[in-house]
């Protein structure tokens, strides 16, 4: 169990892993995530499930190398085992037939977006997807996204691929030309904040999938707490998706930086070791 079946580099920082775990593959729904641990001294960290094959008994994870834990995960090779893997966690996305869905994925956020747009498409919706990244190298899963979208728009900050501009520019263009019934945004917190501000202007119900810091992932510790509509919610049990217009993004961004010092130090030590 938890054996790495295959590994593929999308870029030097973004890796796709297929992991054997029949139980999770079977019970997982779009929007769910897992908590992993690499090595006996590893920390627990979350990753959204980007896909699953219940028949083969595998799940797909897409990892961006940002620190020690993601580096350790990416250093594993097919045949290696992930020390601990638990899931599926979080509330699954509320998939229904509503009309037209605008999906926006920033950077590695496209990976968790995939199962959601697939589900919305299968439910009979029109799906318009915008994927964005800083540059061409960081655009991932384009073909998979295209497969499940009626229309796919690619935006890069520097214009090296697709159109030049931020994800919000791409979104706004779509909003102005057709009626959008619901929007889903996944990506770096700051991207979700601005995307949410945009859709709020146009009164489009929007869900954002948050990437809060987690320790246990089962609602036990409160590290992932976020204010939604003035109420305290735990990302790991009541999320990871919330009504974007009610999320206190500023507070969330501040909390994401909670262990910055420690993370930086740990990363330095780790890079010296390898």
């Amino acid at each position, binding site marked *: 169990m938890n054996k790495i079946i295959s590994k593929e580099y999308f870029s030097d920082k973004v890796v796709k892993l297929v992991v054997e775990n029949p*139980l*999770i593959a079977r*019970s997982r729904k779009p929007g769910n995530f897992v908590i992993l*641990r690499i*090595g006996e*001294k*590893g*920390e*627990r960290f979350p990753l959204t499930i980007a896909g699953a094959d219940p028949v083969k008994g595998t799940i797909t994870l897409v990892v961006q190398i940002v620190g*020690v*834990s993601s580096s*350790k995960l990416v250093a594993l090779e097919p045949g290696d085992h992930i*020390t*601990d*893997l*638990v*899931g*599926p*966690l979080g509330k699954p996305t509320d998939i229904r037939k509503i009309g037209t869905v605008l999906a926006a994925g920033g950077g590695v956020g496209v990976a968790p977006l995939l199962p959601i747009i697939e589900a919305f498409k299968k439910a009979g919706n029109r799906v318009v997807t915008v994927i964005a990244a800083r540059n061409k190298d960081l655009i991932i899963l384009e073909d998979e996204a295209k497969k499940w979208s009626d229309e796919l728009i690619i935006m890069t900050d520097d214009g090296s691929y697709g159109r030049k501009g931020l994800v919000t520019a791409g979104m706004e263009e779509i909003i102005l030309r057709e009626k959008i019934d619901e929007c889903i945004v996944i990506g770096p917190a700051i991207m979700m904040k601005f995307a949410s501000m945009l859709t709020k202007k146009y009164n489009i119900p929007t869900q954002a999938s948050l990437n809060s810091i987690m*320790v*246990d992932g*089962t*609602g*036990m*510790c*409160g*590290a992932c*707490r976020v*204010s939604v509509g003035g109420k*305290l919610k735990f990302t790991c*049990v009541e999320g990871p998706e919330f009504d974007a217009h009610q999320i206190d993004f500023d*507070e969330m961004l*501040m*909390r994401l*930086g*909670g*262990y910055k010092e*420690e*993370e930086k130090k*740990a990363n330095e030590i780790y890079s010296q070791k390898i």
Partner: protein
Amino acid sequence: MNPDILKEERNKEWRSELRSRIKAKERTNIPRVKMPELEPEIRVKYQNREVNKGLDVAQAQREASRCMDCANPTCMEGCPVSINIPKFIKNIERGEFLEAAAALKETSSLPAVCGRVCPQEKQCEAHCFYVDKLKKEAVAIGYLERFAADFERDSGKSNIPGTAKPNRIKVATVGSGPSALSFAGDMVKLGYDVTVFEALHEIGGVLKYGIPEFRLPNSVVDFELENLKKMGVKFQTNFIVGRTASFDDLKAQGFKGFFIGSGAGLPRFMDIPGENYNGIMSSNEYLTRVNLMDASSDNSDTPVIKGKRVAVVGGGNTAMDSVRTALRLGAERAIIIYRRSEAEMPARIEEVKHAKEEGVEFMTLCNPLEYFADSKGRVNKMRLNKMELGEPDASGRRRPVPMEGSEFELDVDLVIVAVGVSPNPLVPSCLPDLKVSRWGTIVVDEEKMQSSIPQMFAGGDIVRGGATVILAMGDGRKAAENMHLHLKNHSANH
């Protein structure tokens, strides 16, 4: 425990002989033993050195000789798991320490744990003959329990209690904390095929993530777990019942009964301004990082914030554990902030005493109002109110009332909110038919520990809110006894 069995045990020759060896007056003149403790200056430097060092053989036997081996042992009334207290103590007195351990294991699955964390002063020792009749200090039942369990562990000659012939009936626990382990121990003895499912990557629940190393070393817990494994209990980590597989899936796999011991793993916050700043966390988060993930050590990847001026809000054992951990992690000031007076703190007196010796400051009759942070969102100050005790309410406790105009500020860089925990909602949310109280606790028939779903029993914090390890164990035992009856009747009807 069956009074006839008690009587039979008591009438055994070795017991009668032991009783007659020392005169009653001599026994009662012996003062209660003092537990050797690691010096405060040393122990605050180490997260993983136990404060209570344990009795040595001479101390243990002398203390054991104080026990009068009463015909009617009132101490047993105070024990939630019905340990045959006189039997194990008299075995210590006569030098049969392994026998003593075996006596403990007849009813308790975790004797080394209980000996360390039970509030004996409120349970068995509170009903000791010495307290009731002589108004003297009780026999140190807790210290003796620990002595026997530790002796057995260190001897390498662990007794594995016998199990009945396997009946091939599969039962499962949800959670691997004290209630579930206790349930598992009793069920496996009855011949059941028991699987313990645990959501985290380590088994033991609050014993591992909640109680610090300096009170209950994880190695002690692991040893007890090994014994359960040797008895045949199966353990499955990284498995969330209701999510990884549903209850229906497990039923389809043949599980006939479930014990829900998923605990009170839901942190509570006070909902005051600034509580979401960085550096303010629940005691669950803090203790999990340090105890479960070993965050204080350099070779663990999990970070923990090591504050220099640490405030812990609360007055229970969890608050004590948190504040003493903070001290060990290098705090220059570690402060307990509790809104009532010291006399009303729920924490064990021993824990408060140890905390004071170690240099923890106690700001009682104080309550936080608001937190402030620096430009990066890291807490740097808190505002508090002084409180005074007002009229007693219906429960008899005097109510803390804010003193007008008494506000003051305190510089802090780490705040632990230890105001209690609530039942974790994950499992109940997977069972819509399960009757749950307004506060999230699973409603059970208190005699049987059976929930509104017949094949689901529950116990421990998920039923009680937040209580002690030993009560959780008592629940586990009761549930095992009743699930056994339920399954027997059930299969008899088919």
